[in-house]
């Protein structure tokens, strides 16, 4: 069966660390980083990149539109 492999790219400087993408992700791929961006927000990043299927749930709910999603069928 074909498998979907995805990845996201977060605009770290635009991310405000609201946590909504972390909650929306059905596969627990995203978490908030311990590091902060220049504004002091703990930005979102992929903690479990292998599980990502590129479903775009995180990007849909992101209020800052700072997530870009990529997906390939392998």
């Amino acid at each position: 069966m074909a498998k979907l492999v995805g990845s996201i790219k977060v605009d770290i400087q635009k991310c405000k660390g609201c946590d909504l993408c972390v909650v929306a992700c059905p596969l627990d791929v995203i978490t908030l980083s311990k590091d902060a961006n220049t504004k002091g927000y703990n930005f979102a990043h992929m903690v479990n990149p292998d599980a990502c299927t590129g479903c775009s749930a995180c990007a849909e709910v992101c209020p800052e539109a700072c997530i870009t999603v990529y997906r390939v069928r392998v």
Partner: protein
Amino acid sequence: MKVTDIVNPANLVYKKNSVLNDLPMHYCPGCSHGVVHKLLGDIIEELDIQEQTIGVAPVGCAVFAYKYLDIDWQQAAHGRAPALATAIKRLLPDRYVFTYQGDGDLAAIGSAETLHACNRGENIVIIYINNGIYGMTGGQMAPTTLLGMKSTTSPKGRMYERDGNPLDMPKLLAGLDGVCYVTRQAVHTVGAVKKCRRAIKKAFEYSALNRGTSIVEVVSTCNSGWKLTPDGANKWMVENMFSQYPLGDIKDTIQTEKK
């Protein structure tokens, strides 16, 4: 497979629309305004009407909406966005004109303008963001505040005897013949965001048919004003707001005629 192989323009499935510019928004982290701005950008891009769209920004948190969406904007006095939009639409009937208003703007100070614009059946779209309080000024009680809901001007909760009942504007406006489409949506989950996108798109399409006013209410959160986390505010909204403001279409004249 390496991340570098996946992150490649050929595999792109979701990116920010081109109507929304790169300026960081001034909204609090997790604010629903950002999602609705994004949806508006998506629809304007999808319908390819960037040059024909004129927005009317309100007074409230969304007062700076004109900074983020790359279309023509006008700034209205508090609550007067439907009156201004009426003038724009009458002078430039081929444009898509929408107002973007909060509940303090639309349901309180601008209730007369909203009611009369809808009664005249102006061919505009009204995007109504309802979070139950005056978010920008620090969380004061609005006409839409729920009974028992605490705000800075009702610290013991809203009481019917003193403050009356929450005002359900879309239900009120759906009774007017000039209104062709009234719907209530939310943007707290992926499914809700997609439904909301379809509703706003429909509203824009209806406004081009010259059949009357289209109203899209978005029940949203104000996590700073409600003193909750963004996720906590979403949960609170599901538990409390939806019983007073149930989601779904309230009126759809054009769809009903088709059946």
